[in-house]
């Protein structure tokens, strides 16, 4: 077996906020001044010791000393939170940006689905865009021609193939864009979050296509927030956090590691100020807690008791239309519940406009709801159709213990995430 991708001590450094310190407005004038004064600073630096690369302020390492390799024909999953360095890694691998340190050796053509539809021009027809997009992705004209019919069939836009794509619906546009990218047939395919787009039917097709690619013995790097997709499509995964590679292992292990890392123990997640993205303002999450019947913060709940989800937050200036809610999903990333504090009509009237202040939105989940297992709580604070202030789908993991639940007299796992206490009526007819 040979390595299709070998990444060695890879580092990528970005400047953050450098414009504020070095060049006030990033203007040519400042650069000219900088150029003139450069020799003086250089002379000075000969006497003073320069700070090390790591210690310089205003830089962050989006990737830091990442080393791994992928064997030919393997599908490797990449998981990590937002800002963990996943996209940067893919950008370096697909040669969009240069690394700051380290080396990558890639055998074969890298096809990236970083974002489908690159180079699509709204004025060009579907047909023209297929050729254009194919060329940008590195396909030869003959190659595009030979696959043209297949691409069109896959995209399901046959009737509109000679219509400018500006007249397409967003779904058609995406289907066409994905179809071109999916037929690129590179030796190495890099996929990032494409599964988040399109309708369910189309997503299924995309996953199928990715599976085909893997079966043909080509290498796939797959980045997703969808843990069930990671589990389904990959055998191995790496976990990235803050630019570092935390672990590599079989997908199940990596997903468990990812989901359980970073969360507070004991059923509470408290946000530090630096963990809140600036565009969350004026909404500021404080904590998310899970409480049992007695009001104790817990990370394991009994299924036969009700449990309470508490979201504590501050609003720094009055907001209208805000709704704060949670997602509840399985560890495989399948949603079970999405609910908001103003779903109820009366609550909505009362709280659709909220003053600034300190709030707790509390929701009681009834007893006898969940099956045994581990679940994930996520948070969403948004104004519908206006702005999503804060969202994190993987905040807090908790366990459900089913002792005493209906059906536990049989020691067998029951299928499905919910296990409600249902009324059965047995009637003897004869």
């Amino acid at each position: 077996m040979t390595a299709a991708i070998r990444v060695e001590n890879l580092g990528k450094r970005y400047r953050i906020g450098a414009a504020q310190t070095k060049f006030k407005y990033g203007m040519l004038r400042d650069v000219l001044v900088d150029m003139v004064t450069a020799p003086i600073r250089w002379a000075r630096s000969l006497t003073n010791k320069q700070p090390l690369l790591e210690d310089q302020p205003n830089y962050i390492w989006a990737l830091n000393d990442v080393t791994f390799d992928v064997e030919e024909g393997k599908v490797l999953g990449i998981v990590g939170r937002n800002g963990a360095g996943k996209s940067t890694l893919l950008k370096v691998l697909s040669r969009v940006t240069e690394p700051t340190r380290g080396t990558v050796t890639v055998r074969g053509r890298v096809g990236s689905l970083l974002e489908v539809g690159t180079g699509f021009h709204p004025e060009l027809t579907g047909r023209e865009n297929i050729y254009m997009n194919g060329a940008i992705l590195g396909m030869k004209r003959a190659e595009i021609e030979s696959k043209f019919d297949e691409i069109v069939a896959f995209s399901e836009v046959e009737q509109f193939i000679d219509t400018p794509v500006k007249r397409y619906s967003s779904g058609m546009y995406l289907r066409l864009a994905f179809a071109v990218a999916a037929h690129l047939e590179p030796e190495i395919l890099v996929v990032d979050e494409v599964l988040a787009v399109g309708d369910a039917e189309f997503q299924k097709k995309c996953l199928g296509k990715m599976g085909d690619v893997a079966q043909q013995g080509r290498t796939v790097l797959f980045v997703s927030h969808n843990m069930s997709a990671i589990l389904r499509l990959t055998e191995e995964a790496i976990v990235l956090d803050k630019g570092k590679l935390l672990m590599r292992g079989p997908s199940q292990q990596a997903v468990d590691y990812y989901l359980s890392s970073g969360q507070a123990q004991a059923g509470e997640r408290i946000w530090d100020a630096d963990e809140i993205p600036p565009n969350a303002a004026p909404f500021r999450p404080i904590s998310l807690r899970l409480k049992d019947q007695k009001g104790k913060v817990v990370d394991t709940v009994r299924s036969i008791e009700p449990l309470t989800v508490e979201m504590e937050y501050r609003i720094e200036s009055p907001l209208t239309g805000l709704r704060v809610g949670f997602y509840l999903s399985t560890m495989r990333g399948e949603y079970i519940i999405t609910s908001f504090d103003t779903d109820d009509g009366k609550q909505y009237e009362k709280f659709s406009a909220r003053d600034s202040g300190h709030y707790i939105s509390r929701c009681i989940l009834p007893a006898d709801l969940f099956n045994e297992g581990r679940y994930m709580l996520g948070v969403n604070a948004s104004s519908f159709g206006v702005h999503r202030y804060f969202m994190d789908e993987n905040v807090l993991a908790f366990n459900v213990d089913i002792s005493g639940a209906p059906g536990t007299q049989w020691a067998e796992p029951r299928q499905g995430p919910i296990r409600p206490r249902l009324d059965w009526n047995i009637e003897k007819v004869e």
Partner: protein
Amino acid sequence: MTELVKHDPTTIYIKPSTGLTALNLRDIWVYRELVFFMIWRDIKVRYKQTLLGAAWAVIQPVMTMLVFNFIFNGGITKVDTDSNIPYPIFSYTALLPWGLFVTALNQASRSLTSNHNMITKVYFPRLVLPMASVLAGLVDFAIAFVILIGLMVYYNVTPDWNVLWALPSFLLLAIVTALGVALWLSAINVKYRDVNYALPFLTQFWFFITPVVYSASVISEKWQLVYSLNPMAGVVNGFRWALLGAGNGPDAALWVSVGISVLVLVSGLYYFRNMERTFADTI
């Protein structure tokens, strides 16, 4: 660790580049089809949703020529065209390469910023973008050239055989110059959008030091060499000589123009390649 097969032709090594980057022009050859597709896209899209369409390629130089003819051919002042060449054809012959040059600069210097979504998402040699923008101007040039042929027939001007090699050569010089300047401007534009504001001023200034409305022969002998530091002066003189038989033809001054032009192109290539590595991060 598995063993990597060395010297595989398809193996790509990605590492930080240091110092002067190799030009790697072979990459352009590999992506030559993309250059053609980009040119084709530029042409297809350029006159979309316009009423007059490709007629604009003719309207612009013809209208400019008519205005110049009014101002400089007796209407306001009288400019001396050597060898008694009619002023309309004298200025139109210069307007063709000049228009090509200005269009190329305008399109190419914006080519990277207006395709930023491509640059941040896919790898391809970035040189493709300014190159395609410059070359796409050739289509407008060809359309406008038809009018020149009409003018030559009308004024009964017949070029000699030299035109067969001279015209393509001077056209090449115009393209090399335009590409060289465009490489500098487009790469700077990625980081400093000042280029957008400086460009109209730059082209206006350049217009005055290029013999479009006047004849280069008005420049006194001792300044001729300095004047030819502007490669576009060489191009315009060359066009007039090749098509109309005006002036003395290729001389030492032309080689200065050629030298400058090549210098700008080569330095532009190196500057562009050097900046290329941070395009995706700074655009």
